[in-house]
């Protein structure tokens, strides 16, 4: 999952200049060439901080990509299981395509930041990490789907605060809402109790 622009050593605190100013300068200002040019310019510390922020955001978005890939694989496992009734096949296919669209959005955002988007693991790896051999019934699949979708909604909400580029906040909030909508349908299917207390995620 390495993306080659890990900027762990670059301090991200203590910024004196609007990140947006730098990031919006031509959109791709943080491509390798742009970032180098900035770093060599009059204010290397500021350029470095902005580049560090962008690299850190890229790492967070790549973890979200990894999450979406796992979701896509989980729906594929469900579709291949032979355990889904016909109407559930429609939902699984639809939701899987939503997750594919999420990954396209994430890839675009990562590229805008000058980063490189990670790809999927092998399907055998997903079968193992999701312990797919334990899925014996349609209900097992619904429970897995609920767990993953609910967790993904919560995970996206948890990305709002650490993402430094505020342009990304709306994106992750929208993705969280999609995951919550998916989760809600599985809660209904499973007659899963809905908490009396909000927030639900």
């Amino acid at each position, binding site marked *: 999952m390495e993306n080659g622009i890990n900027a*762990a050593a*670059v301090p*991200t605190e203590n910024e004196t200049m609007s990140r947006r100013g730098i990031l919006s300068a031509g959109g791709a200002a943080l491509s390798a060439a742009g970032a180098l040019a900035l770093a060599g310019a009059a204010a290397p510390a500021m350029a470095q901080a902005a580049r560090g922020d962008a690299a850190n955001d890229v790492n967070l978005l790549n973890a979200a990509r990894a999450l979406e890939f796992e979701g896509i694989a989980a729906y594929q496992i469900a579709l291949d299981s032979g355990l889904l009734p016909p109407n559930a096949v429609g939902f699984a296919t639809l939701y899987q395509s939503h997750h594919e669209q999420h990954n396209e959005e994430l890839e675009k955002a990562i590229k805008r930041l000058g980063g490189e988007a990670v790809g999927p693991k092998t399907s055998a790896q997903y079968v193992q*990490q999701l312990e797919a051999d334990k899925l014996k019934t349609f209900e097992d699949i619904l429970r897995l789907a609920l*767990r993953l979708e609910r967790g993904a909604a919560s995970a996206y909400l948890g990305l709002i605060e*650490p993402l430094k580029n505020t342009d990304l906040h709306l994106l992750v909030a929208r993705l969280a809402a999609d995951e919550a909508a998916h989760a809600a349908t599985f809660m209904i299917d499973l007659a899963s109790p809905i908490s009396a207390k909000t927030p639900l995620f």
Partner: protein
Amino acid sequence: MKFPRRRTLPLVLAHAAAAGVLAATSCDSSVASFAVQRTTETEQDAQQLDKPVLPNGDAMRGETLYAAKCGACHSIDQNRIGPKHRGVFGRNVGGVDDYEYSAALSDADLVWDDASLDEWLRAPTKMFPGTRMGFAVGDDQERADIIAYLQSVSD
């Protein structure tokens, strides 16, 4: 930094809680006495060190919180989006051999314990800038519960 070592609750009880089964009476009372003892130790520590310390952690609540908040990315025994967690308490940061960490974690020279897990879960990107994990737990009690659970799968 000195932290009292947590006692581990029997895992079987933790599982009952995760399944949504209300804790049995015997379990409740063991937690209660455990909590009383820990409060005393914690207060002493707080006085000695004059620093905020975590409240008492409850591994049973921690397991439920873990499923809801960490389960999107982590499992106890499988590397997924993040590394597997069995044995994490007491292990080096970035210490799972077959998981590919970011440089932020693989270069770190630190052991996961109460204090370091608390700092991490407060704000992972502040503790290790460049990490791929952004998810934070803002509530002190929830962090303490989750850390108690992580310890219970590490002993």
